[in-house]
């Protein structure tokens, strides 16, 4: 009895969470005559394939839209932002965890709080800055601005990660005659690798998901990222190509979902700020 209730509840939550994705899947592979039947027709069940599935929408998405160039643009931004974030946040996290003593904690907290300042507050001053720098409608604007979101959180992540790495290995290296700098350059990188991996993944997911800055600064269709191009540029006038739209949403979601499942625990440790001992 208890078991039944458990499965029923689990099913309920899965249905609520997964329903839009099931709907994407159906829509992406349904033929148009199966898709565009008004919901007032209670004889036509929309929850299943009434006609055989089709690849027509996928063909449209990959063949006749800018989807692939949006994927490319997204990857360019991802790589650039990952490089900047790792180069800036990893040393900062190390510094706060190992070199800054007591005030490192407060400073780390201060940097973390800037993560809470949302894009929707900053997009207006950034609009000014971007036009001053002549970066309107260019991926450069995104590459410059996205690290403002990734650096605070990733600095915090690296700092938290290093706290869980025993100090003894670095200490031993110093006893063996390494200078403090040599420890940082030769010993520490090996210890931080898992932390760096988390930073890369967090940055990747954030860039994939970002919408506000992309909407504000990118106007040419061929310069858009996936999360901007799909909802904005695949809808032309009043014509919604729902099949292709849902195919795009599905294709983009799957890699992100897999990555999230692998790294969820690390992110959570960052979000709970030590309120929970992972």
């Amino acid at each position, binding site marked *: 009895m208890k078991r039944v209730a458990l499965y029923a509840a689990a099913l309920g*939550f899965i249905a609520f969470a997964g329903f839009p994705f099931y*709907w994407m899947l159906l829509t992406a592979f349904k033929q148009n005559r199966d898709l565009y039947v008004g919901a007032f027709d209670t004889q036509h069940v929309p929850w299943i394939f009434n006609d055989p599935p089709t690849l027509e929408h996928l063909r449209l998405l990959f063949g006749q839209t800018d989807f692939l160039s949006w994927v490319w643009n997204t990857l360019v931004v991802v790589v650039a932002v990952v490089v900047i974030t790792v180069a800036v946040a990893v040393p900062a996290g190390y510094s706060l965890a190992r070199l800054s003593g007591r005030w490192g904690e407060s400073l780390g907290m201060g940097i973390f709080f800037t993560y809470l300042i949302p894009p929707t507050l900053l997009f*207006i001053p950034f609009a000014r800055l971007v036009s001053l720098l002549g970066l309107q409608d260019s991926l450069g604007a995104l590459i410059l601005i996205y690290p403002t979101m990734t650096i605070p959180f990733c600095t915090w992540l690296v700092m938290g990660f290093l706290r869980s790495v025993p100090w003894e290995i670095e200490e031993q290296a110093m006893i063996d005659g390494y200078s403090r700098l040599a420890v940082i350059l030769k010993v520490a990188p090996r210890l931080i690798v898992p932390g760096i991996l988390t930073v890369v993944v967090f940055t990747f997911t954030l860039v994939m998901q970002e919408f506000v800055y992309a909407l504000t600064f990118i106007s040419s269709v061929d310069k858009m990222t996936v*999360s901007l191009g799909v909802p904005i540029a695949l809808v032309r006038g009043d014509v919604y190509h729902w099949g292709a739209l849902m195919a795009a949403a599905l294709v983009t979601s799957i890699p992100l979902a897999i990555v999230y499942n692998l790294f969820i625990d690390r992110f959570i440790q960052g979000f709970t700020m030590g309120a929970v001992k992972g």
Partner: protein
Amino acid sequence: MIARRSWADREDVLGAAMLAPALAYVLLLVGVPFVLAIALSFSNAAAGSLSFGWVGAQNYAAILADPIFLRSLRNTAIVTVGSQVLVVVLATAAAQVFRVAFRGKRFARFVLLLPWAVPVSLAAIAWTWIFDSTFSVVNWTLKTAGLLHGWLYWLGDPGLALVAIIIVQAWRIFPFATVIVLAGLSSIPQEVVEAAIVDGAGFWRRLFRIELPLLLPVVAVAVLFGVVYTATDLGVVYILTGGGPANTTQVLPTLAFQRGIQGSDLGQGAAIAVFLLPFLVVVAVAMLRLARHTEVGAK
């Protein structure tokens, strides 16, 4: 005798050097724009021209007299509170389910996390299709089940559109909250729970008297992030309703975007966005208190 330490051994020098780029980035590209956001709200700055003059509180006077702004402020509060209440209920319930081992749990967890992993804008476009005025599967299902006799224009009716926005916001945040609550549950000392069982406390008593009070700080963290993510979110409303019909579902971020970026009135857009600050200040203060509280509790 103490050997003179070279700079390569001075932790303060190395620490400052390694921290400097991050501090510079945050100060220049978060700190300065943040101050500028507030400064712009007192100016008549417009996109396209770089000159601007001070206009005092004129922008604030204008928006406070504007019914659309007042409505967007109210909508922001309604959507934030409404969705977070749903999130807390759903997340604590889901955490109770997902703490137990059952067949297919890995797959269930994968599905549960999907709403959090998918980009907001793509989720919003999927929900736009789900709530479509002609093809809504929600309407079909309600109608076939005999629960609906008329027709629901989800995104065309101001009240229903707000309900739809709340559902989507709760949907995309509750998985995140669930995982945080789960992490909290696993950190409750097992002895406390066992002692309660020995003393004869049943499931509900255990839940409300022991676990929920102990979980409070963790649930608070989830809610605080939830508030920030919902109150400051542009994508869901922008894509789902575009603030319509007739500006009835505008929230602060969409209105700031419409006036500031699309309408080129940076000053007024900035003034609207500044009203997000109270939400953020409340969250930041609560988080700081929470952090101090848990630290004290740990010692």
